[in-house]
């Protein structure tokens, strides 16, 4: 009899703990689960919009759908950023911020995400580096430089330098200089980085494959260089040369009707 009571008392002692467990909110998610939930929600909505876009024939309505998709992306960027700000040290913050940067987030939200990465995740900057090359902001350059500093293996250093080179090349390839940036200096910086990759990291074959054409382009086709010759047929099959037009100002336009 005593044992049973003892047992019953023991059981009762455990019960409060069990009750407490059940009190926990049933849909409390881990940060990773929260990320997945937001991402799945977005993906479904985006897929629906894409279907509607494809089905729509009217151009104005198509544009409206496109605008809607863009607005929705901007709204979800805020949710991803909020998740990152709630869990700045968690790996989830990298994935969330990476999602926003892949979609071209700009302005204060971009800065906020960048700050979290620089503070807590310099070892993971290679995740976002490819998205930063088209940005013209000083913060993007800061992240790309930090990525170079944090890289350890030759192949990752080469990759990091390639992304930074692309950033500078992008600035050099702008007709209208970005404020505070000199295209000639940017071209020189890109050339320096690409030369380093090609000479010091020759073993990183896949990085080299991407660096070489960009380096040759800067060496041959930067502002200030003499234009190379083009000799080819026109649309009527008649051969002609770019140099036929020497003495005139020429605007060369790589284009298509598509």
């Amino acid at each position, binding site marked *: 009899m005593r044992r049973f009571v003892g047992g019953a008392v023991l059981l009762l002692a455990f019960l409060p703990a069990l009750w407490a467990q059940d009190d926990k909110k049933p849909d409390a998610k881990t940060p990773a689960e929260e990320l997945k939930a937001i991402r799945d929600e977005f993906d479904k909505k985006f897929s629906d919009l894409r279907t509607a876009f494809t089905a729509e024939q009217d151009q104005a309505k198509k544009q409206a759908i496109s605008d809607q998709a863009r607005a929705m992306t901007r709204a979800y960027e805020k949710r991803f950023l909020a998740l990152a700000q709630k869990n700045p040290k968690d790996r989830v913050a990298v994935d969330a911020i990476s999602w926003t940067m892949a979609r071209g987030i700009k302005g204060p939200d971009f800065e906020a995400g960048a700050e979290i990465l620089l503070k807590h995740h310099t070892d993971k900057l290679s995740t976002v580096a490819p998205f930063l090359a088209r940005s013209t902001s000083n913060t993007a350059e800061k992240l790309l430089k930090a990525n170079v500093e944090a890289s350890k293996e030759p192949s990752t250093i080469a990759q990091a330098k390639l992304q930074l080179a692309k950033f500078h090349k992008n600035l050099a390839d702008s007709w209208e200089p970005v404020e505070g940036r000199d295209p000639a200096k940017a071209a020189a910086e890109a050339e320096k980085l690409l030369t380093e990759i090609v000479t010091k990291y020759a073993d990183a074959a896949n990085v080299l494959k991407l660096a070489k054409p960009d380096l040759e382009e800067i060496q041959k086709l930067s*502002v200030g260089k003499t234009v190379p010759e083009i000799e080819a047929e026109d649309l009527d099959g008649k051969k002609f040369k770019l140099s036929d037009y020497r003495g005139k100002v020429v605007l060369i336009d790589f284009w298509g009707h598509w």
Partner: protein
Amino acid sequence: MFPHERSLVKRLEGKPFALLGVNSDKDRDECKKKNETAEITWRSFWNGGSTKGPISDAWNVRAWPTLYLIDHNGVIRAKSVGSPSEKAMDEAIDKLVAEAVKSK
């Protein structure tokens, strides 16, 4: 893009200026037909029927359109991946055309 280029060509008729395309459409005849409709009168080099052709490969062109502005001495003076603003284009081109006219 086309309206501005049409106006450039018209505006600078008789001046030392030429607009030359490098065209990446699949089919030459199709392209010519579309050119007629769009009133594209300027000459284009044929890039072999794709965006991966001999000229674009030699120039490492990966994004379209890409523009190069060359002065009357054959020196590259500006470059853009994507179309710049019409204002920026007009300013740069007019400046170089004035240089070319002066040099004659």
